[in-house]
């Protein structure tokens, strides 16, 4: 699957100029990341034809816009989930879903599957104004899926939700792409959402009133560079890929995840029953990782991994960010510069990473 973008959008406050082929080898989530106001939403709106642009847009073999013709939004096989859901206020939940169901090639079975998956069957008779933020967004996602798009656009779907609703919806979004065999373009300015959801990252940057894509690459490639834009953030994270051991290994409410040679333990509260596949993705905040020179046997910390320092970056805030190589993967640790000096940390040193918290993300 491939989305070809050659477009220019002129707005009074900035110009968006994008020349990029976006590929999906398999269905997955490509996250468009950038600061607020850098044109992320405008890019999505341009793709589905809600903004007047100059240039070309092509999805697979279908030309959506060229110099000769512009396909109107309703004839592009693309759907969009808006930030605040944008459910139709004059219709109840079921009628909102039917609005899109009636106009698409979706089957009744897919309809049932969709409302089951998003867990909204009990809401069907509700008025949309009686829904919580999280419920509203689930209905909005279902409504978009029911239009059977070839490409799903999501414009900061979690931005207006509280922490609880967010954590309630994230698992649905994580599975969406695989289950519906659907490429997704997802806009956010939240690093946590990037870490939780992204397969690929598209970095959008605005300089001197000109917004452009500066990088489009797999998330892991971007994270490998210690100077990546996520690392400037207090929530800077690293991602580890591992394999979860089958049920027999479960002890005292813990799950064992194996990296190449070493192991991590997860509390089972965040293991989802639908994780049928054995491979898992773990999200570790840099600030949850401390460093010691020896393997502390008298610590309550469960996860201690052995690794090698590959890069140290000093930050103006009095911290330093340290990249460790662990079983051929990278873990980030953020500690105070003082501690780093006290331990005399140097590139190439062999150390132990003590990990306070691990979250399962995908």
């Amino acid at each position: 699957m491939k989305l070809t973008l050659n477009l220019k959008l002129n707005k009074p406050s900035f110009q968006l100029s994008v020349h990029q082929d976006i590929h999906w080898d398999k269905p997955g989530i490509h996250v468009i990341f950038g600061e607020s106001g850098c044109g992320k939403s405008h890019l999505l709106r341009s793709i589905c034809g809600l903004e007047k642009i100059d240039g070309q847009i092509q999805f697979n073999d279908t030309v959506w816009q060229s110099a000769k013709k512009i396909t109107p939004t309703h004839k592009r096989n693309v759907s969009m989930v808006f930030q605040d859901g944008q459910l139709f206020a004059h219709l109840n939940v079921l009628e909102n879903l039917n609005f899109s169901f009636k106009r698409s090639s979706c089957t009744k079975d897919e309809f049932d599957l969709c409302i089951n998956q998003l867990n909204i069957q009990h809401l069907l008779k509700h008025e949309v104004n009686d829904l919580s933020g999280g419920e509203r967004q689930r209905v909005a996602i279902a409504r978009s899926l029911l239009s059977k798009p070839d490409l799903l656009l999501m414009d900061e779907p979690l931005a207006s939700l509280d922490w609880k609703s967010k954590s309630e919806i994230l698992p649905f979004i994580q599975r969406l792409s695989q289950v519906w065999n659907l490429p997704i373009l997802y806009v956010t300015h939240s690093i946590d959402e990037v870490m939780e959801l992204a397969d690929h990252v598209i970095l959008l940057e605005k300089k001197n009133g000109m917004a452009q894509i500066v990088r489009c690459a797999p998330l892991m490639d971007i994270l490998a560079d210690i100077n990546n834009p996520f690392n400037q953030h207090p929530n800077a994270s690293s991602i580890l890929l591992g394999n979860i051991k089958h049920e027999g290994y479960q002890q005292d409410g813990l799950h064992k995840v194996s990296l190449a040679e070493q192991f991590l333990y997860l509390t089972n509260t965040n293991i989802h029953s639908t994780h049928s596949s054995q491979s898992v993705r773990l999200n570790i905040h840099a600030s949850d990782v401390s460093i010691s020179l020896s393997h502390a046997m008298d610590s309550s910390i469960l996860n201690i991994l052995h690794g090698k320092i590959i890069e140290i970056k000093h930050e103006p805030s009095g911290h330093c960010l340290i990249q460790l190589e662990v079983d051929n993967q990278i873990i980030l640790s953020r500690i105070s510069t003082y501690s780093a000096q006290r331990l005399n940390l140097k590139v190439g040193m062999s150390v132990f990473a003590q990990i306070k918290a691990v979250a399962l993300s995908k």
Partner: protein
Amino acid sequence: MDSLLLTLKLAFISTCILLIISTPIAWLLAHKQFRGKAFIEALIALPLVLPPTVLGFYLLIALGPDGPGGWVAGLWGDRTLAFSFTGLVIGSVIYSLPFVVQPLQSGFILIGAQPLQVAATLRASFIDGFKHVILPLAKPAYITAATLGFAHTLGEFGVVLMIGGNIPNETQVVSIAIFEHVETMNYSSAHSLSGILLILSFTMLAMIYRNRSRSLNGKHKSTNTSGGSGLL
């Protein structure tokens, strides 16, 4: 009583025509930027401030044998559209246009462009989305617009006097009939017609306000679109 029926017929037909032609005008004014927009808005609002006799005078000329109205009337062998029911309908539509366009325009502005865009991402064409999303959302605005248009046409006097004259069963509407009753010292007939018009107008305005306060206090706060009552 013939004058009353004639008035209701005139108001009903004018309101229907007004709702149809005001919908695209109000949508364009609410959501499109184009050259000459202010000019068109001012033109539509003109009947709000112009003395009805001035409007009536120009309409008389336009509808008369030497104006475009005379040409149109010639298509079916008449000499003029003035002093005819058709002429009254045309006059009423122009006279009441701002009372219908403005509530619809504020209603469409309140709804915004987004619901139609959302509908488009769900495979609904413009017409489809307008019919199934915008019209239902704008229902309060349509009720306000229809009531105002109807009530305002009921109360019309100056324009009718200028272009319609006072032909029973053709152009003699209630307001003219009342005037004539008073002129001929027939106060009891003037009383009954005036009373009916008073009650009718009051009832309709009361309905608008109830409709408005409902959508303000009701649970559909975010979709209050009965805009334009500010005209009152």
